[in-house]
């Protein structure tokens, strides 16, 4: 009986052969104990190569809501500012400007009673002309 080489069996296990070739090998393995044993051995070796099972703590659920809330809060604040700005702009355009009345304030100094300014100019003249 013809036996398949290990490389051929490995190619079959890895799915590298055509469907017809793979079927042929499987059918052969059903009646050939030697090929069946080697085929099963190769299958288990390939399973071991792909069977590393690393262990680590599972990641926690990301707190996406916080980010969503932050975005939503920023958007709401921006919207409020924009509404306020546009509202103010519209009001200033629609309303006529109010007249501005400025009432001048005059100083009304009260001279201290004991200073020289208390005397009138005429008094000073009178003092000068007095011999």
């Amino acid at each position, binding site marked *: 009986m013809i036996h398949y080489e290990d*490389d051929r069996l490995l190619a079959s296990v890895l*799915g590298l052969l055509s469907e017809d070739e793979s079927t042929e090998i499987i059918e052969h393995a059903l009646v050939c104990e030697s090929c069946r044993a080697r085929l099963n051995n190769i299958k288990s070796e390939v399973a071991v*190569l792909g069977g*590393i099972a690393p262990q680590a703590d599972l990641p926690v659920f990301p707190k996406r809501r916080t980010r969503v809330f932050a975005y939503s809060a920023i958007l709401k604040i921006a919207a409020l500012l924009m509404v306020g700005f546009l509202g103010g702009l519209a009001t200033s355009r629609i309303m006529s400007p109010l007249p501005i009345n400025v009432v001048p304030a005059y100083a009304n100094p009260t001279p201290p009673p004991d200073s020289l300014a208390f005397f009138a100019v005429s008094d000073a003249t009178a003092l000068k002309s007095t011999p």
Partner: protein
Amino acid sequence: MNDWECLERAKRGEESAWRTLVERHHARLLGISLLITGSSSAAKDIAQESFVRLLDANVSHREGTVQGLLSTIAYRLALKEKARGQRTEDIAAINPANPSPSPLDELLAEERDRLVAAAIRSLDPQHRDILVLRFYGEHSYEEIAGLTGIPLGTVKSRIFYAVKSCQQFLRDKGLFA
């Protein structure tokens, strides 16, 4: 509940759906990122980041599998991490005869797993990546060709060579008969 339904629900904030997805795929993503980068700390970060990016991704179709999406994300993140080259614990240097505590012990508790990881890490990157994408990403050869930009025939020859090299490595270490 299938993976797509879990993803939809997780995107809506359903934590139990997220947990289901994580329990199904976390180990594989750890495997991909560990074998590509060689770093256990990078592997944990990448596995977590892959799930977060999946939630953020705008997936408008249901072509392929969620596993395929996740492993593609993890693979690309692992390549970036490897390019930075800051975190490497060199799995290939592990000597099972003289086991000493290492960060990898936390991830790979079984000695057999550490040996297999060492075998895969002993491959050159162009063969290693194909094997990892096939066995741990569960991608078809056509998908791997598309993902890596390597011709399909080359992908097939590389997986064959990669497996044969690992078999020989593990025979030398006594794991395979």
